[in-house]
Protein backbone atom coordinates (compact mmCIF):
# COMPACT_ATOMS: atom_id res chain seq x y z
CA UNK A 1 0.00 0.00 0.00
CA UNK A 2 1.24 3.44 -0.84
CA UNK A 3 -0.86 5.52 1.53
CA UNK A 4 -2.33 4.06 4.67
CA UNK A 5 -4.45 5.27 7.54
CA UNK A 6 -4.24 3.04 10.57
CA UNK A 7 -6.76 3.15 13.41
CA UNK A 8 -7.31 6.88 13.07
CA UNK A 9 -9.53 8.56 15.64
CA UNK A 10 -10.43 12.20 15.87
CA UNK A 11 -12.87 14.13 18.01
CA UNK A 12 -13.87 17.76 17.94
CA UNK A 13 -15.31 18.16 21.40
CA UNK A 14 -18.31 15.84 21.45
CA UNK A 15 -18.33 15.37 17.72
CA UNK A 16 -16.60 12.25 16.47
CA UNK A 17 -15.12 13.07 13.08
CA UNK A 18 -13.26 9.79 12.66
CA UNK A 19 -13.83 6.47 14.37
CA UNK A 20 -11.10 3.89 13.88
CA UNK A 21 -10.53 4.66 10.22
CA UNK A 22 -8.44 2.07 8.38
CA UNK A 23 -7.68 1.99 4.71
CA UNK A 24 -4.89 1.76 2.21
CA UNK A 25 -4.47 3.21 -1.24
CA UNK A 26 -2.35 1.69 -4.00
CA UNK A 27 0.08 3.77 -6.01
CA UNK A 28 -1.36 5.45 -9.07
CA UNK A 29 -4.98 4.96 -8.03
CA UNK A 30 -7.62 7.61 -7.91
CA UNK A 31 -9.77 7.33 -4.81
CA UNK A 32 -12.97 9.09 -3.85
CA UNK A 33 -13.92 9.70 -0.23
CA UNK A 34 -17.68 9.82 -0.51
CA UNK A 35 -20.21 10.68 2.16
CA UNK A 36 -22.94 13.09 3.16
CA UNK A 37 -21.95 16.49 4.52
CA UNK A 38 -20.71 16.33 8.08
CA UNK A 39 -19.66 12.70 7.69
CA UNK A 40 -16.02 13.44 8.47
CA UNK A 41 -14.59 12.88 5.01
CA UNK A 42 -12.92 16.27 4.78
CA UNK A 43 -11.38 15.79 8.22
CA UNK A 44 -9.90 12.51 7.08
CA UNK A 45 -8.39 14.20 4.04
CA UNK A 46 -7.01 17.01 6.18
CA UNK A 47 -5.45 14.52 8.58
CA UNK A 48 -3.75 12.84 5.65
CA UNK A 49 -2.37 16.21 4.62
CA UNK A 50 -1.29 17.10 8.15
CA UNK A 51 -3.63 20.09 8.28
CA UNK A 52 -5.44 18.39 11.12
CA UNK A 53 -3.82 16.19 13.76
CA UNK A 54 -5.47 12.88 14.63
CA UNK A 55 -6.07 12.04 18.30
CA UNK A 56 -4.66 8.56 17.79
CA UNK A 57 -3.56 6.29 14.99
CA UNK A 58 -0.95 6.58 12.27
CA UNK A 59 -0.80 8.08 8.82
CA UNK A 60 1.65 6.18 6.65
CA UNK A 61 2.98 7.37 3.31
CA UNK A 62 5.37 5.15 1.38
CA UNK A 63 5.94 2.98 4.43
CA UNK A 64 6.90 5.92 6.62
CA UNK A 65 4.82 7.13 9.56
CA UNK A 66 4.33 10.83 8.88
CA UNK A 67 2.38 11.83 12.00
CA UNK A 68 5.03 14.32 13.09
CA UNK A 69 6.03 15.61 9.70
CA UNK A 70 4.57 19.06 9.06
CA UNK A 71 2.22 19.32 6.09
CA UNK A 72 4.69 21.22 3.94
CA UNK A 73 7.18 18.37 4.12
CA UNK A 74 4.92 15.42 3.43
CA UNK A 75 5.26 15.71 -0.33
CA UNK A 76 1.55 16.22 -0.77
CA UNK A 77 -0.23 18.50 -3.21
CA UNK A 78 -3.51 19.85 -1.92
CA UNK A 79 -6.34 21.37 -3.90
CA UNK A 80 -8.52 23.25 -1.44
CA UNK A 81 -12.25 23.59 -1.52
CA UNK A 82 -12.84 26.93 -3.26
CA UNK A 83 -9.18 26.59 -4.24
CA UNK A 84 -7.68 29.12 -1.78
CA UNK A 85 -5.76 30.74 -4.61
CA UNK A 86 -3.62 33.63 -3.43
CA UNK A 87 -5.80 36.55 -4.40
CA UNK A 88 -2.97 39.04 -4.58
CA UNK A 89 -0.77 36.92 -6.82
CA UNK A 90 -1.03 36.25 -10.53
CA UNK A 91 -1.60 32.83 -12.00
CA UNK A 92 2.14 32.58 -12.57
CA UNK A 93 3.01 33.58 -9.01
CA UNK A 94 0.43 31.21 -7.60
CA UNK A 95 1.89 28.25 -9.45
CA UNK A 96 5.46 29.31 -8.69
CA UNK A 97 4.84 29.78 -4.97
CA UNK A 98 5.71 26.26 -3.82
CA UNK A 99 8.87 26.29 -5.94
CA UNK A 100 9.94 29.71 -4.69
CA UNK A 101 9.48 28.55 -1.12
CA UNK A 102 11.93 25.76 -1.90
CA UNK A 103 14.30 28.44 -3.19
CA UNK A 104 14.67 26.77 -6.53
CA UNK A 105 16.61 28.25 -9.38
CA UNK A 106 14.69 31.01 -11.18
CA UNK A 107 15.13 29.47 -14.59
CA UNK A 108 13.97 26.10 -13.30
CA UNK A 109 10.93 27.68 -11.70
CA UNK A 110 10.04 29.44 -14.90
CA UNK A 111 10.33 26.26 -16.94
CA UNK A 112 8.25 24.26 -14.51
CA UNK A 113 5.54 26.91 -14.27
CA UNK A 114 5.30 27.24 -18.04
CA UNK A 115 5.18 23.47 -18.37
CA UNK A 116 2.22 23.37 -15.99
CA UNK A 117 0.49 26.35 -17.57
CA UNK A 118 0.77 24.46 -20.82
CA UNK A 119 -0.45 21.22 -19.25
CA UNK A 120 -3.60 22.78 -17.85
CA UNK A 121 -4.19 24.86 -20.96
CA UNK A 122 -3.94 28.33 -19.48
CA UNK A 123 -1.40 29.70 -21.92
CA UNK A 124 -1.50 33.47 -22.10
CA UNK A 125 -3.25 33.84 -18.77
CA UNK A 126 -0.17 33.78 -16.54
CA UNK A 127 -0.47 37.43 -15.66
CA UNK A 128 -4.09 37.35 -14.64
CA UNK A 129 -5.26 37.51 -11.06
CA UNK A 130 -7.61 34.85 -9.69
CA UNK A 131 -10.62 37.17 -9.75
CA UNK A 132 -10.19 37.56 -13.50
CA UNK A 133 -10.69 33.84 -14.05
CA UNK A 134 -13.75 31.66 -14.39
CA UNK A 135 -14.46 28.91 -11.89
CA UNK A 136 -13.06 26.25 -14.19
CA UNK A 137 -9.90 28.24 -14.86
CA UNK A 138 -9.38 28.72 -11.14
CA UNK A 139 -9.62 25.01 -10.63
CA UNK A 140 -6.95 24.52 -13.26
CA UNK A 141 -4.67 26.99 -11.49
CA UNK A 142 -5.25 25.29 -8.14
CA UNK A 143 -4.45 21.96 -9.76
CA UNK A 144 -1.28 23.28 -11.38
CA UNK A 145 -0.21 24.98 -8.16
CA UNK A 146 -0.60 21.75 -6.21
CA UNK A 147 1.36 19.80 -8.81
CA UNK A 148 4.21 22.29 -9.24
CA UNK A 149 6.53 20.93 -6.53
CA UNK A 150 6.06 17.42 -7.98
CA UNK A 151 4.21 15.86 -5.02
CA UNK A 152 3.85 12.10 -4.70
CA UNK A 153 0.25 12.34 -3.59
CA UNK A 154 -2.51 14.71 -4.62
CA UNK A 155 -5.41 15.48 -2.30
CA UNK A 156 -8.49 17.34 -3.50
CA UNK A 157 -11.20 18.69 -1.22
CA UNK A 158 -14.54 18.90 -3.05
CA UNK A 159 -12.80 19.97 -6.24
CA UNK A 160 -16.03 20.58 -8.14
CA UNK A 161 -18.15 22.20 -5.45
CA UNK A 162 -17.46 25.75 -6.62
CA UNK A 163 -18.26 25.11 -10.26
CA UNK A 164 -21.48 25.53 -12.21
CA UNK A 165 -23.38 22.33 -12.79
CA UNK A 166 -23.06 22.78 -16.54
CA UNK A 167 -19.27 22.92 -16.67
CA UNK A 168 -18.82 20.40 -13.90
CA UNK A 169 -19.20 17.32 -16.09
CA UNK A 170 -16.69 18.59 -18.58
CA UNK A 171 -14.19 19.43 -15.86
CA UNK A 172 -14.59 16.05 -14.24
CA UNK A 173 -13.50 14.33 -17.39
CA UNK A 174 -10.68 16.83 -17.82
CA UNK A 175 -9.41 16.30 -14.28
CA UNK A 176 -9.57 12.54 -14.56
CA UNK A 177 -7.65 12.67 -17.82
CA UNK A 178 -5.04 15.02 -16.33
CA UNK A 179 -4.49 12.93 -13.23
CA UNK A 180 -4.09 9.78 -15.31
CA UNK A 181 -1.67 11.64 -17.56
CA UNK A 182 0.47 12.81 -14.66
CA UNK A 183 0.10 9.38 -13.08
CA UNK A 184 -0.12 10.68 -9.53
CA UNK A 185 -1.87 8.87 -6.69
CA UNK A 186 -4.83 10.99 -5.72
CA UNK A 187 -7.63 11.11 -3.22
CA UNK A 188 -10.57 13.44 -3.50
CA UNK A 189 -13.47 14.23 -1.26
CA UNK A 190 -16.99 14.56 -2.61
CA UNK A 191 -20.59 14.34 -1.49
CA UNK A 192 -21.79 13.70 -5.04
CA UNK A 193 -22.04 10.00 -5.83
CA UNK A 194 -22.29 10.58 -9.55
CA UNK A 195 -18.98 12.41 -9.39
CA UNK A 196 -17.36 9.64 -7.34
CA UNK A 197 -18.62 6.90 -9.63
CA UNK A 198 -17.52 8.71 -12.75
CA UNK A 199 -14.04 9.79 -11.69
CA UNK A 200 -12.72 7.33 -9.11
CA UNK A 201 -11.06 3.95 -9.50
CA UNK A 202 -12.15 3.14 -6.00
CA UNK A 203 -14.66 4.65 -3.62
CA UNK A 204 -14.45 4.85 0.14
CA UNK A 205 -17.78 5.57 1.73
CA UNK A 206 -17.73 7.47 5.01
CA UNK A 207 -20.66 8.04 7.32
CA UNK A 208 -20.63 9.61 10.76
CA UNK A 209 -16.87 9.25 10.99
CA UNK A 210 -16.99 5.54 10.15
CA UNK A 211 -15.68 3.80 7.07
CA UNK A 212 -18.69 1.99 5.65
CA UNK A 213 -17.25 0.34 2.59
CA UNK A 214 -14.33 0.49 0.23
CA UNK A 215 -14.45 -0.88 -3.29
CA UNK A 216 -14.72 -0.17 -6.99
CA UNK A 217 -17.79 1.79 -8.07
CA UNK A 218 -19.36 -1.39 -9.47
CA UNK A 219 -18.73 -3.34 -6.27
CA UNK A 220 -20.25 -0.63 -4.17
CA UNK A 221 -23.22 -0.41 -6.41
CA UNK A 222 -23.85 -4.10 -6.80
CA UNK A 223 -22.85 -5.34 -3.38
CA UNK A 224 -23.47 -2.77 -0.72
CA UNK A 225 -22.21 -4.17 2.54
CA UNK A 226 -24.02 -1.96 4.97
CA UNK A 227 -27.50 -0.58 5.16
CA UNK A 228 -26.11 2.94 4.89
CA UNK A 229 -24.35 2.19 1.61
CA UNK A 230 -27.42 0.44 0.23
CA UNK A 231 -29.51 3.54 0.89
CA UNK A 232 -26.90 6.14 0.00
CA UNK A 233 -25.90 4.82 -3.39
CA UNK A 234 -28.39 5.01 -6.22
CA UNK A 235 -31.97 6.18 -5.90
CA UNK A 236 -33.71 3.81 -3.62
CA UNK A 237 -37.05 3.40 -1.90
CA UNK A 238 -37.01 2.03 1.64
CA UNK A 239 -39.92 -0.25 2.47
CA UNK A 240 -40.81 -1.43 5.93
CA UNK A 241 -41.87 -4.98 5.14
CA UNK A 242 -41.47 -6.77 1.89
CA UNK A 243 -42.31 -10.33 2.90
CA UNK A 244 -45.83 -10.10 1.47
CA UNK A 245 -44.47 -9.85 -2.04
CA UNK A 246 -44.64 -12.65 -4.57
CA UNK A 247 -41.34 -14.47 -4.69
CA UNK A 248 -40.14 -12.98 -1.40
CA UNK A 249 -42.31 -14.92 1.05
CA UNK A 250 -39.25 -16.45 2.75
CA UNK A 251 -37.91 -13.08 3.80
CA UNK A 252 -37.43 -12.42 7.49
CA UNK A 253 -40.42 -10.44 8.74
CA UNK A 254 -40.25 -6.80 9.75
CA UNK A 255 -36.89 -6.07 8.20
CA UNK A 256 -36.56 -2.99 6.05
CA UNK A 257 -36.08 -3.60 2.37
CA UNK A 258 -34.51 -1.41 -0.27
CA UNK A 259 -35.77 -1.46 -3.83
CA UNK A 260 -34.05 0.44 -6.59
CA UNK A 261 -35.88 1.41 -9.79
CA UNK A 262 -33.71 -0.93 -11.81
CA UNK A 263 -34.80 -3.88 -9.64
CA UNK A 264 -38.37 -3.38 -10.79
CA UNK A 265 -39.92 -4.27 -14.13
CA UNK A 266 -43.40 -3.07 -15.12
CA UNK A 267 -45.02 -4.45 -18.25
CA UNK A 268 -48.46 -4.74 -19.76
CA UNK A 269 -50.10 -8.16 -19.34
CA UNK A 270 -50.25 -8.67 -23.10
CA UNK A 271 -46.49 -8.22 -23.46
CA UNK A 272 -45.20 -11.29 -25.32
CA UNK A 273 -41.62 -10.79 -24.27
CA UNK A 274 -42.33 -10.96 -20.53
CA UNK A 275 -45.05 -13.62 -20.74
CA UNK A 276 -42.99 -16.24 -18.95
CA UNK A 277 -42.50 -13.91 -15.99
CA UNK A 278 -46.16 -13.25 -15.23
CA UNK A 279 -46.37 -15.95 -12.51
CA UNK A 280 -43.63 -14.18 -10.61
CA UNK A 281 -45.21 -10.74 -10.93
CA UNK A 282 -47.73 -8.79 -8.86
CA UNK A 283 -50.34 -6.45 -10.31
CA UNK A 284 -50.09 -2.74 -9.68
CA UNK A 285 -51.65 0.52 -10.72
CA UNK A 286 -49.74 3.49 -12.11
CA UNK A 287 -50.22 6.41 -9.72
CA UNK A 288 -47.76 8.87 -11.19
CA UNK A 289 -45.75 9.37 -14.34
CA UNK A 290 -42.81 11.77 -14.29
CA UNK A 291 -40.87 12.77 -17.34
CA UNK A 292 -37.13 12.68 -16.60
CA UNK A 293 -35.75 13.91 -19.90
CA UNK A 294 -34.60 10.70 -21.49
CA UNK A 295 -36.97 8.30 -19.72
CA UNK A 296 -40.17 8.10 -17.72
CA UNK A 297 -40.28 7.43 -14.01
CA UNK A 298 -43.36 5.43 -13.08
CA UNK A 299 -44.71 5.19 -9.58
CA UNK A 300 -46.78 2.05 -9.08
CA UNK A 301 -48.96 1.05 -6.20
CA UNK A 302 -48.81 -2.67 -5.44
CA UNK A 303 -51.07 -3.71 -2.56
CA UNK A 304 -50.61 -0.23 -1.16
CA UNK A 305 -46.82 -0.31 -1.43
CA UNK A 306 -45.36 2.34 -3.72
CA UNK A 307 -42.56 1.26 -6.06
CA UNK A 308 -40.68 3.21 -8.67
CA UNK A 309 -39.29 2.08 -11.99
CA UNK A 310 -37.82 3.73 -15.04
CA UNK A 311 -39.35 3.18 -18.48
CA UNK A 312 -37.74 3.78 -21.81
CA UNK A 313 -39.48 6.26 -24.07
CA UNK A 314 -39.24 3.70 -26.88
CA UNK A 315 -41.77 1.44 -25.23
CA UNK A 316 -45.54 1.59 -25.53
CA UNK A 317 -47.17 4.63 -23.91
CA UNK A 318 -48.74 4.20 -20.47
CA UNK A 319 -51.15 6.34 -18.50
CA UNK A 320 -52.01 7.02 -14.89
CA UNK A 321 -54.54 4.52 -13.53
CA UNK A 322 -53.44 1.76 -15.86
CA UNK A 323 -53.01 -1.77 -14.45
CA UNK A 324 -49.55 -3.23 -14.99
CA UNK A 325 -47.69 -6.40 -14.12
CA UNK A 326 -44.99 -5.53 -11.64
CA UNK A 327 -42.00 -7.81 -11.24
CA UNK A 328 -39.31 -7.29 -8.61
CA UNK A 329 -36.05 -9.01 -9.49
CA UNK A 330 -34.30 -8.55 -6.16
CA UNK A 331 -34.20 -6.44 -3.02
CA UNK A 332 -31.69 -5.54 -0.37
CA UNK A 333 -32.81 -6.61 3.05
CA UNK A 334 -31.40 -4.58 5.89
CA UNK A 335 -30.42 -6.49 8.98
CA UNK A 336 -29.10 -4.17 11.69
CA UNK A 337 -26.02 -2.70 10.04
CA UNK A 338 -25.74 -5.10 7.12
CA UNK A 339 -27.39 -5.32 3.76
CA UNK A 340 -28.08 -8.66 2.04
CA UNK A 341 -29.30 -9.28 -1.44
CA UNK A 342 -32.40 -11.42 -1.88
CA UNK A 343 -33.53 -12.57 -5.31
CA UNK A 344 -37.06 -13.27 -6.39
CA UNK A 345 -37.23 -17.06 -5.87
CA UNK A 346 -39.95 -17.53 -8.47
CA UNK A 347 -37.45 -16.47 -11.09
CA UNK A 348 -35.29 -19.50 -10.43
CA UNK A 349 -34.45 -21.14 -13.70
CA UNK A 350 -35.61 -18.16 -15.74
CA UNK A 351 -32.85 -16.66 -17.76
CA UNK A 352 -33.33 -12.98 -17.07
CA UNK A 353 -30.24 -11.86 -18.89
CA UNK A 354 -31.64 -13.33 -22.09
CA UNK A 355 -34.55 -10.93 -22.04
Amino acid at each position, binding site marked *: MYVEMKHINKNFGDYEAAKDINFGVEQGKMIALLGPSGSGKTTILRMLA*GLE*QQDSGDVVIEGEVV*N*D*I*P*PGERGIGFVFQNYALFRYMTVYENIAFGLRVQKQDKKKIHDRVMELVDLVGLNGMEKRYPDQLSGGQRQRVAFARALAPRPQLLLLDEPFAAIDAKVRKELREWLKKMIKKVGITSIFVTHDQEEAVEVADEIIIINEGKLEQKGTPVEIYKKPKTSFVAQFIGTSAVLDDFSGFKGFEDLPKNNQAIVRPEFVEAFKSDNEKFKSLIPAAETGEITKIAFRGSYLELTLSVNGILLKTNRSLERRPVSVGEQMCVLVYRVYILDEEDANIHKNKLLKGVDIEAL
Partner: protein
Amino acid sequence: MSRKRKKGKRVIPGFGLTMGITVTLLSLLILIPLASVLAYSFRMSGTEFLELITRPNVVQAFMTSIGCAFVAAVVNCVFGLILAWVLVRYEFPGKRLMDGMIELPFALPTAVAGITLSRMYSDQGILGRLLSHMGIQASYSKVGLTIALVFIGIPFVVRALQPVLEKLPHTYEEASEMLGASRSYTFRRVILPELTPALLTGFGLALARGIGEYGSVIYISGNSEKEGTQVVSYIIMQKLNSGSVDYEGAAAIALVLLLISFLLLLFINIVQITAGRRTKQ
Protein backbone atom coordinates in the same frame (compact mmCIF):
# COMPACT_ATOMS: atom_id res chain seq x y z
CA MET B 1 2.71 8.97 21.95
CA SER B 2 1.21 12.15 23.29
CA ARG B 3 4.63 13.80 23.49
CA LYS B 4 5.15 13.02 19.84
CA ARG B 5 1.82 14.52 18.88
CA LYS B 6 2.51 17.95 20.34
CA LYS B 7 4.66 19.06 17.46
CA GLY B 8 3.09 20.21 14.24
CA LYS B 9 -0.27 20.53 15.88
CA ARG B 10 -1.04 23.82 14.18
CA VAL B 11 -0.51 24.17 10.50
CA ILE B 12 -0.14 27.94 10.39
CA PRO B 13 2.97 29.05 12.22
CA GLY B 14 3.31 31.80 14.78
CA PHE B 15 0.99 30.64 17.55
CA GLY B 16 3.57 30.78 20.32
CA LEU B 17 5.10 34.05 19.18
CA THR B 18 1.85 35.96 18.74
CA MET B 19 0.38 34.50 21.92
CA GLY B 20 3.49 35.57 23.81
CA ILE B 21 3.51 39.13 22.52
CA THR B 22 -0.23 39.58 22.84
CA VAL B 23 -0.49 38.31 26.39
CA THR B 24 2.67 40.11 27.54
CA LEU B 25 1.64 43.50 26.19
CA LEU B 26 -1.93 43.08 27.31
CA SER B 27 -0.84 42.16 30.83
CA LEU B 28 1.85 44.79 31.22
CA LEU B 29 -0.01 47.70 29.71
CA ILE B 30 -3.64 47.03 30.56
CA LEU B 31 -4.37 44.23 32.98
CA ILE B 32 -1.71 44.77 35.63
CA PRO B 33 -2.32 48.51 35.95
CA LEU B 34 -6.07 47.88 36.18
CA ALA B 35 -5.43 45.17 38.73
CA SER B 36 -3.56 47.76 40.79
CA VAL B 37 -6.75 49.80 40.98
CA LEU B 38 -8.59 46.72 42.17
CA ALA B 39 -5.90 45.87 44.68
CA TYR B 40 -5.96 49.42 45.96
CA SER B 41 -9.68 49.47 46.50
CA PHE B 42 -9.68 46.03 48.11
CA ARG B 43 -7.39 47.37 50.78
CA MET B 44 -10.37 49.18 52.16
CA SER B 45 -12.93 47.52 54.35
CA GLY B 46 -16.43 47.07 53.05
CA THR B 47 -17.86 49.85 55.20
CA GLU B 48 -15.11 52.27 54.20
CA PHE B 49 -15.74 51.46 50.59
CA LEU B 50 -19.46 51.94 50.95
CA GLU B 51 -18.98 55.18 52.82
CA LEU B 52 -16.76 56.52 50.03
CA ILE B 53 -19.05 55.70 47.18
CA THR B 54 -22.28 56.73 48.87
CA ARG B 55 -21.20 60.27 49.60
CA PRO B 56 -23.86 62.59 48.22
CA ASN B 57 -21.59 64.23 45.65
CA VAL B 58 -20.39 60.86 44.38
CA VAL B 59 -23.88 59.45 44.07
CA GLN B 60 -24.97 62.63 42.34
CA ALA B 61 -22.03 62.40 39.91
CA PHE B 62 -22.97 58.84 39.01
CA MET B 63 -26.57 59.89 38.45
CA THR B 64 -25.43 62.76 36.25
CA SER B 65 -22.95 60.70 34.23
CA ILE B 66 -25.27 57.78 33.67
CA GLY B 67 -28.38 59.90 33.14
CA CYS B 68 -26.85 62.31 30.65
CA ALA B 69 -24.98 59.54 28.82
CA PHE B 70 -28.21 57.59 28.57
CA VAL B 71 -30.18 60.51 27.18
CA ALA B 72 -27.37 61.33 24.76
CA ALA B 73 -27.18 57.72 23.61
CA VAL B 74 -30.93 57.67 22.97
CA VAL B 75 -30.72 60.94 21.01
CA ASN B 76 -27.84 59.43 19.07
CA CYS B 77 -29.84 56.32 18.26
CA VAL B 78 -32.56 58.47 16.69
CA PHE B 79 -30.29 60.79 14.74
CA GLY B 80 -27.74 58.07 14.07
CA LEU B 81 -30.43 55.94 12.46
CA ILE B 82 -31.57 58.84 10.28
CA LEU B 83 -28.01 59.77 9.30
CA ALA B 84 -27.02 56.20 8.53
CA TRP B 85 -30.18 55.67 6.50
CA VAL B 86 -29.67 58.85 4.52
CA LEU B 87 -26.01 58.08 3.92
CA VAL B 88 -26.70 54.56 2.70
CA ARG B 89 -29.94 54.94 0.82
CA TYR B 90 -30.00 58.37 -0.80
CA GLU B 91 -27.85 60.31 -3.21
CA PHE B 92 -27.43 64.03 -2.64
CA PRO B 93 -24.69 66.59 -3.09
CA GLY B 94 -22.19 66.70 -0.24
CA LYS B 95 -22.93 63.15 0.81
CA ARG B 96 -19.32 62.06 0.77
CA LEU B 97 -18.27 65.07 2.79
CA MET B 98 -20.93 64.26 5.34
CA ASP B 99 -19.89 60.65 5.42
CA GLY B 100 -16.30 61.60 6.05
CA MET B 101 -17.08 64.17 8.69
CA ILE B 102 -19.27 61.85 10.75
CA GLU B 103 -16.09 60.66 12.40
CA LEU B 104 -14.91 64.15 13.28
CA PRO B 105 -15.68 63.51 16.96
CA PHE B 106 -13.26 60.55 16.83
CA ALA B 107 -10.54 62.60 15.23
CA LEU B 108 -11.04 65.90 17.03
CA PRO B 109 -9.30 66.00 20.43
CA THR B 110 -11.88 66.00 23.19
CA ALA B 111 -10.38 69.09 24.82
CA VAL B 112 -10.82 71.04 21.60
CA ALA B 113 -14.39 69.82 21.28
CA GLY B 114 -14.96 70.68 24.92
CA ILE B 115 -13.84 74.30 24.83
CA THR B 116 -15.49 74.90 21.46
CA LEU B 117 -18.86 73.52 22.48
CA SER B 118 -18.63 75.38 25.75
CA ARG B 119 -18.16 78.70 23.93
CA MET B 120 -20.78 77.97 21.29
CA TYR B 121 -23.48 77.19 23.81
CA SER B 122 -22.60 79.90 26.32
CA ASP B 123 -24.89 82.93 26.58
CA GLN B 124 -22.68 84.87 24.16
CA GLY B 125 -22.14 81.88 21.85
CA ILE B 126 -23.79 81.55 18.49
CA LEU B 127 -26.15 78.77 19.51
CA GLY B 128 -26.27 79.55 23.20
CA ARG B 129 -27.81 82.94 22.49
CA LEU B 130 -30.54 81.28 20.48
CA LEU B 131 -31.25 78.76 23.20
CA SER B 132 -31.24 81.33 25.97
CA HIS B 133 -33.89 83.27 24.08
CA MET B 134 -35.95 80.14 24.33
CA GLY B 135 -35.25 80.07 28.04
CA ILE B 136 -32.77 77.20 27.90
CA GLN B 137 -29.39 77.60 29.48
CA ALA B 138 -27.09 75.18 27.65
CA SER B 139 -23.55 75.78 28.85
CA TYR B 140 -22.89 75.04 32.51
CA SER B 141 -25.95 72.82 32.78
CA LYS B 142 -26.94 69.24 32.14
CA VAL B 143 -28.29 70.29 28.76
CA GLY B 144 -24.83 71.34 27.63
CA LEU B 145 -23.32 68.21 29.13
CA THR B 146 -25.74 66.08 27.15
CA ILE B 147 -25.01 68.02 23.96
CA ALA B 148 -21.30 67.33 24.38
CA LEU B 149 -22.04 63.62 24.84
CA VAL B 150 -24.23 63.60 21.73
CA PHE B 151 -21.29 65.07 19.82
CA ILE B 152 -18.93 62.41 21.19
CA GLY B 153 -21.30 59.50 20.67
CA ILE B 154 -22.78 60.07 17.22
CA PRO B 155 -20.12 58.21 15.20
CA PHE B 156 -20.53 55.07 17.30
CA VAL B 157 -24.16 54.66 16.29
CA VAL B 158 -23.75 55.68 12.64
CA ARG B 159 -20.74 53.44 12.12
CA ALA B 160 -22.43 50.49 13.78
CA LEU B 161 -25.51 50.85 11.57
CA GLN B 162 -23.98 51.66 8.20
CA PRO B 163 -22.50 48.26 7.28
CA VAL B 164 -25.68 46.47 8.32
CA LEU B 165 -27.84 48.82 6.29
CA GLU B 166 -25.56 48.39 3.29
CA LYS B 167 -26.02 44.64 3.44
CA LEU B 168 -29.76 44.84 3.92
CA PRO B 169 -31.11 44.15 0.44
CA HIS B 170 -33.71 46.36 -1.19
CA THR B 171 -35.69 43.22 -1.90
CA TYR B 172 -36.57 43.08 1.79
CA GLU B 173 -38.58 46.24 1.60
CA GLU B 174 -39.90 45.33 -1.81
CA ALA B 175 -41.08 41.98 -0.57
CA SER B 176 -42.86 43.65 2.30
CA GLU B 177 -44.36 46.24 -0.03
CA MET B 178 -45.55 43.51 -2.40
CA LEU B 179 -47.32 41.86 0.49
CA GLY B 180 -49.23 45.06 1.05
CA ALA B 181 -47.40 46.52 4.04
CA SER B 182 -47.29 50.27 4.48
CA ARG B 183 -43.99 52.16 4.65
CA SER B 184 -44.07 52.66 8.39
CA TYR B 185 -45.17 49.08 8.97
CA THR B 186 -42.33 47.87 6.77
CA PHE B 187 -39.91 50.00 8.72
CA ARG B 188 -41.12 48.88 12.13
CA ARG B 189 -41.59 45.20 11.38
CA VAL B 190 -39.05 44.43 8.68
CA ILE B 191 -36.17 46.88 8.79
CA LEU B 192 -35.93 47.82 12.45
CA PRO B 193 -35.64 44.23 13.70
CA GLU B 194 -32.75 43.72 11.28
CA LEU B 195 -31.04 46.80 12.64
CA THR B 196 -31.70 46.22 16.32
CA PRO B 197 -28.46 44.38 17.16
CA ALA B 198 -26.35 47.04 15.46
CA LEU B 199 -28.40 49.79 17.05
CA LEU B 200 -27.96 48.22 20.49
CA THR B 201 -24.24 47.84 19.91
CA GLY B 202 -23.94 51.48 18.89
CA PHE B 203 -26.06 52.47 21.86
CA GLY B 204 -23.88 50.46 24.23
CA LEU B 205 -20.66 51.90 22.86
CA ALA B 206 -21.95 55.48 22.97
CA LEU B 207 -23.23 54.93 26.50
CA ALA B 208 -19.94 53.45 27.68
CA ARG B 209 -17.99 56.28 26.15
CA GLY B 210 -20.40 58.85 27.58
CA ILE B 211 -20.30 57.55 31.14
CA GLY B 212 -16.53 57.75 31.28
CA GLU B 213 -16.10 60.89 29.19
CA TYR B 214 -13.90 63.62 30.57
CA GLY B 215 -12.32 66.06 28.12
CA SER B 216 -15.35 67.16 26.17
CA VAL B 217 -17.68 67.60 29.14
CA ILE B 218 -15.65 69.33 31.84
CA TYR B 219 -15.72 72.74 30.15
CA ILE B 220 -19.35 72.82 29.17
CA SER B 221 -20.73 71.26 32.34
CA GLY B 222 -19.42 73.88 34.73
CA ASN B 223 -18.59 71.17 37.29
CA SER B 224 -20.87 72.61 39.92
CA GLU B 225 -21.75 70.40 42.83
CA LYS B 226 -24.78 72.53 43.58
CA GLU B 227 -26.14 72.24 40.03
CA GLY B 228 -25.35 68.55 39.92
CA THR B 229 -23.18 68.92 36.84
CA GLN B 230 -20.11 67.12 38.13
CA VAL B 231 -19.39 63.91 36.25
CA VAL B 232 -17.73 60.83 37.73
CA SER B 233 -14.50 61.29 35.80
CA TYR B 234 -14.26 64.82 37.15
CA ILE B 235 -14.61 63.59 40.72
CA ILE B 236 -11.86 61.03 40.22
CA MET B 237 -9.59 63.61 38.64
CA GLN B 238 -10.25 66.00 41.50
CA LYS B 239 -9.09 63.38 43.94
CA LEU B 240 -5.85 62.92 42.00
CA ASN B 241 -5.02 66.60 41.96
CA SER B 242 -2.29 67.73 44.24
CA GLY B 243 -3.61 69.55 47.26
CA SER B 244 -6.50 67.18 47.82
CA VAL B 245 -5.02 63.81 46.93
CA ASP B 246 -7.40 61.01 47.90
CA TYR B 247 -6.28 57.77 46.28
CA GLU B 248 -8.68 55.57 48.25
CA GLY B 249 -11.65 57.60 47.14
CA ALA B 250 -10.45 57.68 43.53
CA ALA B 251 -9.88 53.91 43.50
CA ALA B 252 -13.26 53.16 45.02
CA ILE B 253 -15.13 55.29 42.49
CA ALA B 254 -12.99 53.92 39.66
CA LEU B 255 -13.91 50.41 40.73
CA VAL B 256 -17.61 51.15 40.43
CA LEU B 257 -17.01 52.81 37.07
CA LEU B 258 -15.03 49.77 35.91
CA LEU B 259 -17.86 47.51 36.98
CA ILE B 260 -20.32 49.55 34.91
CA SER B 261 -17.99 49.39 31.92
CA PHE B 262 -17.67 45.63 32.22
CA LEU B 263 -21.42 45.23 32.37
CA LEU B 264 -21.78 47.34 29.23
CA LEU B 265 -19.04 45.39 27.49
CA LEU B 266 -20.79 42.19 28.46
CA PHE B 267 -24.06 43.58 27.14
CA ILE B 268 -22.46 44.50 23.79
CA ASN B 269 -20.82 41.08 23.49
CA ILE B 270 -24.06 39.27 24.24
CA VAL B 271 -25.91 41.39 21.67
CA GLN B 272 -23.30 40.57 19.05
CA ILE B 273 -23.14 36.87 19.86
CA THR B 274 -26.93 36.46 19.75
CA ALA B 275 -27.12 38.45 16.54
CA GLY B 276 -24.38 36.29 15.02
CA ARG B 277 -26.19 33.15 16.04
CA ARG B 278 -29.45 34.32 14.54
CA THR B 279 -27.97 35.16 11.18
CA LYS B 280 -26.27 31.78 11.06
CA GLN B 281 -29.60 29.98 11.20
